[in-house]
């Protein structure tokens, strides 16, 4: 049965490839050389080296999400200990890198929300720098409202989506 299924899937995939319209295969060109860089290091090498990792475990260290209040980017009292635990771990493990992914809820303009998500990521970044983490260990990215954790247009969903995710890299 299993064999039949996998054959069927294989046949189906081929049929799909052959019979269905497919978006053009878009191959990214090599990035153009960036000679002047007024805003810091280039991120173009990020993909290959920055595979995500499981990261450390522990009561606080296994918590990887920091939530924020509406229109705020200051770290709430209930999240200070989580940020401090990760900062302490990173300070002790200077070879370990993390990506801080900032997010906003869906209300308002998309690109402005990218800015709000970045403010939250930067708040976590600054707190970690103050606690002895090196700049080179931290990268921020803001997804704004583009990658919600949960669907929905109510206060509960908004509260879950206003967040910074701490992602450990390999």
């Amino acid at each position, binding site marked *: 049965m299993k064999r039949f299924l996998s054959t069927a899937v294989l046949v189906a995939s081929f049929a799909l490839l052959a019979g269905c319209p497919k978006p*053009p295969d878009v191959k990214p060109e090599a990035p153009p050389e960036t000679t002047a860089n007024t805003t810091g290091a280039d991120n173009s090498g990020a*993909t290959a080296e920055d595979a995500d990792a499981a990261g450390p475990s522990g009561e606080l260290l296994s918590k990887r999400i920091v939530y924020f209040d509406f229109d705020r980017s200051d770290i709430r009292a209930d999240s200070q200990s989580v940020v401090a635990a990760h900062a302490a771990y990173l300070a002790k493990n200077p070879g370990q890198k993390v990506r801080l992914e900032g997010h906003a809820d869906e209300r*308002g303009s998309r*690109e402005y929300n990218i*800015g709000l998500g970045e403010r939250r990521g930067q708040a976590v970044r600054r707190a970690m720098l103050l606690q002895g983490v090196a700049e080179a260990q931290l*990268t*921020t*990215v803001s*997804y704004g409202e583009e990658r919600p954790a949960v669907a929905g247009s109510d206060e509960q969903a908004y509260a879950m989506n206003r967040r910074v995710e701490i992602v450990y890299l390999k």
Partner: protein
Amino acid sequence: MRKLATCLLLLCAAPAFAQLQLTITSGVTDPIPIAVVPFERAVPADGGIDVAAIVQRDLESSGRFKAMKRTDMLSRPTTASAVDVLAWKQQRNDYVVVGRLTAQPGGAVTVEAELVNVLTGQPLPLGKKWTAGPGKLRNAAHKVADAVFEAIIGVRGAFATQIAYVSVDGQPPKQRYQLIVADADGEAPQVILERERPIMSPAWSPDGSMLAYVSFESKLSAVYVQNVRTGQRSRVSARAGINGAPTWSPDGKKLALTLGGSGGNLDIYLLDLATQQPRRLTDDPGIDTEASFTPDGSAIYFTSDRSGNPQIYRLGLAGNEKPKRVTFTGAYNARPRVSPDGKQLAVLTLDDGAYRIGVQDLASGTLSVLTKGRQDESPSFAPNGAMVILAGRQGGKGVLQTISIDGQTSLRLNADAGEVREPVWGPYLP
């Protein structure tokens, strides 16, 4: 085996992406009665495309016309001289459109169309013939509609244009993002990019050949420009921190974009596409983003929260100018887009607790709210300046809408699957 075959057929029949369905949601109270008579066909060169039906649908979708049913037509003339003016007038038409297709060598088709005002009995010149290469007949039909619209309303139609938008499928956090280009009526959609991480902020080049956009495919943000027809693309900004909100200068040689750097201070830069050199335009600790050029390229409008809340500012680019705030109505104004004539600004504005689209007259500073939704966003002007396309929500899902800037006519473009967002109206094509 038969079951499998059926299942494959179904899989193939399912669209690979969302198809848009157009619904007129509001029109003028007295639409102009018009009859669009089936055109004389060119079989088989026309590929079965019903040019008159496309012209009729375009005109009706503007909310300004009401078309006669074909089954009510007593005759089917294909030239202006064959139109029995009195008979059409008796059937309560103001205008009749007739036309014919002629096959050309090499698979091209020529479309000739004529417009008759049956109240005066006079033909109204449409000015030209349209020759469509293979596969371009639909576009030629939209051009006929543009010309008919202009002859009657006095404003060039924007039917023979394209829109780009982002389509999203799946439930968070596993979603699939597509960048799609389609005709302005939602037909002939083509996926030009598909990724598992967000794609956002598409922007047309002034000549309509390229799109700039933001993609998070590397897990970090980067700005790309992509040729819409060949698919060839290049990454033009992947600097540390945010790379966002690209918009083309009117000469097509530069992009204004938002960069954040590793310190996360969002400011607007001007990136020369030939030299790859960015030049800083704004410098403020607040969020500066969402630049939009004036048509002459002498200034940008942008969103900034330097005063506490997001508001719109204008920055002249002549040198040493300081940004000047231009919006003072309401606590939240963002995402400005300058109209093609440079006289108006479409914005996202917080109105009575809801996010809506407003149009601000730049001379008087008066802001009029155009939409009635709770979460409308991403306004973009049609190239004739008479309509705005935007994203709204219906049943918890993102849909596209167009609305005339007098607020009288509107239509909705629903996706049959997933949700659609961030529509941008492309320019007139040569």
